[in-house]
């Protein structure tokens, strides 16, 4: 500490001398770093927090990724591309890569189209039942991502309600490309809907009014004004969809089948089925590269291209961009999609109460008895893991958001990037990374609650960071400066001023990461053990062993818990902040 202080002081003396000579002379990076350290070390608490966070980001995000890369390109301590070569030599694994990319691209296209359809209809027309359509489009986000796959099997599978019970088709092939694409689009179009709705709502209707006023036809105005303004948003939504689909694990595990290999599932099978760590890691690495590059392309390039057209008060304008005929056409299409989503959830609900799905659909509670009996440990464990990791991830996310927005320190950019990285890294990759990184001393965590907690915390900090950054950018920095000026140190300023201001963002982030933690599967499936089990993993193994009823019952309970948690947090916020509180939450 002393030596660092001395170093810094000599550094700043050097700066002073330099500046005395010439104000225009450049200060080197090191001088600036030294000065930044000197600034922070005026507040030791802040310094400790920064060092701790940087250290834990390295250990729990970067180190596991490093292990995955090392495992796939190092053989007996020497650099070698033989494992990667092996992977690409295999026709089957090559297919897996191509399938994954193709599935990602197609989901992006169809998801963006349906998402835009919903977003445009809800924000730009006066169709009825907007609230209902909104809820239908939101539900897939707050439920486990593989519910689509499960329901599609129950509808179109061998014992499927539609294919077998209704149409009496034997051996209808739903596994593979067709089924998976439907499941992925249903699962991920809501992400596009939310993004595009934000984009469309930020386009002032007065722009359309102006274009109409200048004599444009409705179609022309849409093509020349509305659509071009939404293009960056559409591109951004498509890239996000691509990354999410590529990383998805649950739907392909259930629906892809052996004829249509998918990268994330193959990586999982290599490790848990064949115990081939190098090959599993190599597949993970192949999965990692497109995900991370597309993610950062989206985040730092496309999302910057977005137009900002709103200034001042939102202007009132009645929707007139679509003709009545088009309006009803849009409405009908939205209803159709909503009806399909409703069908999916109704199927799950019915399946949970049906004795043997497909052959004996009479009602029973036996599946729920199973869930609350043999399966109850998984329910309890899931609640513990999600209940503990979510608030911790939320607080950590808020602290990082605060540091990144408000403070200057060496390593700030690194902190920002590495903490956002876990959004971009597919769960499968991080799961494998945790298996590799924490199976030996001093970090022997395999099979413990701690490994699940750490994994969930560091996977879901970006949620907190994003909402924290958003709110901090709105709060004038001088509010915190006022607290400091009145004598509060960094710790007290954060606790007494910043944190209370971030509470609404904190809770909406909390809900989102709670949902993600409850429904997580891709990384968690590598980390569960006999002592710590999760509902999502239970659902998977029930599906695999053909017990669709139990899987459906588990899913119903899971969605029920999530809904209960959302309602609980919302009403708690309404109590604390009045009617405003409830609407503070996005979902």
């Amino acid at each position, binding site marked *: 500490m002393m030596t660092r202080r001395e170093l810094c002081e000599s550094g700043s003396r050097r700066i*002073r001398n330099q500046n005395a000579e010439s104000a225009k002379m450049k200060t080197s990076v090191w001088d*600036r770093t030294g000065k930044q350290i000197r600034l922070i070390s005026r507040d030791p608490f802040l310094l400790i927090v920064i060092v701790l966070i940087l250290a834990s980001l390295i250990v729990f995000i970067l180190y596991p990724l490093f292990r995955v890369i090392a495992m796939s390109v190092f053989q007996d301590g020497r650099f070698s591309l033989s494992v990667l070569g092996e992977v690409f030599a295999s026709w089957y694994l090559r297919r897996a890569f191509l399938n994954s990319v193709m599935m990602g691209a197609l989901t992006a296209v169809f998801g963006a189209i349906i998402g835009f359809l919903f977003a445009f209809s809800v924000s730009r027309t006066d169709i009825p039942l907007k609230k209902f359509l909104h809820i239908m489009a939101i539900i897939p986000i707050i439920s486990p991502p593989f519910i689509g796959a499960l329901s599609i099997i129950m509808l179109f599978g061998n014992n499927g309600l539609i294919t077998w019970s209704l149409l009496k088709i034997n051996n209808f092939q739903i596994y593979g490309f067709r089924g998976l694409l439907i499941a992925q689009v249903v699962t991920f179009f809501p992400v596009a809907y939310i993004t595009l709705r934000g984009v469309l709502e930020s386009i002032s209707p007065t722009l359309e009014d102006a274009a109409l006023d200048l004599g444009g036809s409705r179609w022309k105005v849409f093509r020349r004004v509305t659509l071009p303004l939404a293009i960056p948003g559409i591109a951004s939504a498509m890239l996000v969809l691509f990354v999410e689909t590529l990383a998805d694990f649950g739907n392909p595990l259930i629906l892809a089948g052996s004829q249509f290999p998918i990268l994330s599932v193959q990586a999982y099978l290599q490790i848990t089925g064949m115990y081939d760590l190098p090959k599993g890691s190599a597949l993970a690495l192949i999965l990692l590269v497109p995900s991370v590059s597309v993610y950062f392309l989206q985040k730092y390039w496309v999302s910057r291209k977005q137009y900002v057209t709103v200034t001042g008060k939102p202007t009132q304008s009645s929707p007139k961009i679509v003709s009545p005929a088009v309006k009803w056409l849009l409405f009908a299409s939205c209803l159709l999609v909503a009806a399909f989503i409703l069908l999916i959830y109704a199927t799950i609900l019915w399946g949970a109460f049906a004795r043997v799905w497909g052959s004996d659909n009479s009602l029973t509670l036996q599946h729920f008895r199973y869930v609350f009996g043999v399966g109850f440990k998984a329910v309890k464990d899931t609640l513990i893991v999600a209940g503990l990791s979510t608030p911790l991830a939320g607080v950590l996310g808020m602290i990082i958001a605060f540091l990144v927005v408000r403070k200057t320190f060496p390593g700030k950019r690194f902190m920002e990037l590495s903490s956002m990285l876990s959004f971009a890294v597919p769960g499968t990759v991080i799961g494998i990374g945790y298996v590799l990184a924490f199976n030996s001393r001093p970090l022997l965590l395999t099979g413990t609650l701690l490994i699940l907690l750490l994994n969930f915390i560091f996977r879901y900090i970006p949620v907190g960071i994003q909402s924290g950054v958003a709110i901090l950018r709105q709060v004038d920095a001088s509010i915190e400066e006022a607290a400091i000026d009145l004598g509060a140190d960094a710790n007290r300023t954060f606790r007494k001023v910043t944190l209370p201001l971030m509470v609404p963002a904190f809770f909406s982030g909390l809900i989102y990461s709670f949902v993600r933690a409850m429904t997580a599967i891709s990384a968690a499936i590598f980390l569960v053990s006999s002592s710590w089990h999760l509902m999502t993993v239970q659902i998977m193994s029930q599906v695999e062993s053909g017990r669709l009823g139990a899987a459906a019952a588990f899913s119903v309970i899971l969605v029920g818990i999530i809904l209960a948690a959302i309602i609980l947090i919302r009403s708690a916020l309404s109590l604390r902040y009045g009617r405003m509180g409830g609407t503070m939450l996005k979902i």
Partner: protein
Amino acid sequence: MSVRLVNISKIFPSPDTPHKQVVAVKAVELEINDGEMVTLLGPSGCGKTTTLRIISGFEMPTTGDVWIEGQKVNDLPPNRRDTSMVFQSYAIFPHLSVAQNIGFGLELKGWKAARIREEVERIMEVMNLKDMYHRRPDQLSGGQQQRVALARAIINKPSVLLFDEPLSNLDAKLRELMRVEIRRIQQTFKITSVYVTHDQAEAMTVSDRIVVMNDGEVMQIGTPFEIYSRPANLFVADFIGKVNLIEGRITDTKGETYAVEYKTGSKTISSAAAALQKGQKILTVVRPESLRLAKPQSPDSVLLLGKVVKIVYLGPTVEYELSVDGLKRTIAAVVSNPIEAGFFDIGEEVAIDFHPQAAHLIPAEE
């Protein structure tokens, strides 16, 4: 000496080009006495806010030292400096009540709740904030928010009170009211204050002394009278109020009294920004309200002969714009009480004169 700035400079990395630098404050020297109110005045980007933030500790000076109450505070973070700031945006904590806002600093000092309450009530009384105790910030008007921000800063009895353009968010009428109010409160508590503004009328009203800044440098330090009537240079003369700069030449010097020759007449003037030489070209600083206009009598008694080119009738005053042969700039004159003083028409010839005491000489820049 309450505040002393010694050779303060601040260099920022340029926000646009990564390796360029911006000099925000250049070698500023300033001494502020106990109980004095000093205003940093200048156009936007002149470094006045940066200087204020260096005193408060929010910015570290690149060079130089900051002294507060005889103590060098360079290494003290803002929370440990005995300064309180009134922010431009007021920075009222939106999640706390008015009383909690005002008592925030005392709470941090660890005062007992009852004592905080007593003190907060006392200060609210002085600040005309009675009955606002439990109000939330969003239920306050702009002027009330301003008072809360001021009360919150004053209650800590800081060695130095800092104001960062505190009135710029208020409407014109309230601004005039509040600047008198701020001066009253500063005088009541005798708090050493530094006030930043770009509004010269505001600076004139609240300050004991004004520091005029431009491009990071101090242009002049002086009382409002000195800044207005005896500007040190062209920038100060031009920045503060409307001004006439009449070209002339020194024909004779006698101590600090100068004989100045103009186009048609001459004058003896004893106020100058710097020592002047015989034969030197100068500019005479005369404010429009100091000019005397009259119908020309005999041609030899006229100092300057102008022609009316524009008239603006404002009611209590009339503003004339006059062109004088051989002068680069037109001359602005304000005539108060025009009914008694008489009116001039466009195109009319007018004799222009001024009292020697109302004039101030600065060297003409080549």
